[in-house]
């Protein structure tokens, strides 16, 4: 899918974007994102998949140092994703912003 498509920015998407923007250059694990945002895996991964499809998200696999443990998938916003996320968060409705502030305080 080409970049620049319109993604529906639900409250859940906004909270994920806020979490990813928290340390924008840092690679994040899915489970950590789930704990930080309070999103269940069934909500989190479809959003991650959509963000990746839109090229807003960069992903990579990290080999585990521990033998027998599968490689983990890591995520961070792409450069275009970061500016888009900031834009989306800036135009988010007040309720969503309150939610995001609460998440930031928790972390």
């Amino acid at each position: 899918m080409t970049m620049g498509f319109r993604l529906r920015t639900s409250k859940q998407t906004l909270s994920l974007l806020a979490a990813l923007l928290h340390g924008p250059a840092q690679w994040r694990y899915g489970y950590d994102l789930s704990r930080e945002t309070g999103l269940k895996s069934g909500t989190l991964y479809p959003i991650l998949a959509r963000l990746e499809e839109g090229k807003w998200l960069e992903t990579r696999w990290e080999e585990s140092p521990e033998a027998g443990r599968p490689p983990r998938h890591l995520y961070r916003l792409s450069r275009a994703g970061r500016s888009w996320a900031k834009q989306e968060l800036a135009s988010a409705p007040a309720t969503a912003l309150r939610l995001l502030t609460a998440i930031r305080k928790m972390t």
Partner: protein
Amino acid sequence: MNWHAKRLRGGAEEPLPPARRKLDLAFVFLRGCRAWLPAHKRNWADAMLSELAVIAGLRPRLRWAWSGSLGLGKIWARSLLNDAIRGDQDRRWVVTMVALYHAGFTAVLLGALAWQAPVIFGRPSWSEAVLPFLCMLFVAMLPAVIALGLWLMDDAARLLAIFFSLAHALGDYAWITAQHRAWGPRPVTRMVLDLAMIAALLLPSVKKAFRPPQLHLRLRDE
């Protein structure tokens, strides 16, 4: 203290050791879901499985796996929808729409039969209705068979769908004219839909998509 002993003693649970993963219910369940996904979407199931390895406690792992399976369902449905809208290499989206229409047709007919069944079989002479009921059941399944054929890009199904739409449109026309019924919006919509489906299935691009790949035969000494 090993993992199993710690679990039995009720101590703080640690992430599952690799050796125990094969038998862990959450892993088995999520791996099963992974198998149902199309190959290009399995990386998301792998991502969930890799996180499962660091989640402590059976209940949180099961919660992760259950919710994850629903998430994989969403990813799969979205991928199907995208394929249908954009059209993948072989399937034009119109074919998908026609297939969905036929599947819906069967669903409506089966619904009508299910609704009528208690009335029919509640009568003393119910045994006389068995054969017609079975015939109607067979007829109701026909559109679903066509839908399946269209989904599998079977050219016979395309021809059958054209025939079915034509018969349906002519049937509607005959019913209205013979019964001297008014041309209401419903039969007109049905007929327009039938004609649109015939036109769609006769599109050169659609016909080409249904054509089987050419076989290049060679002689042994060639």
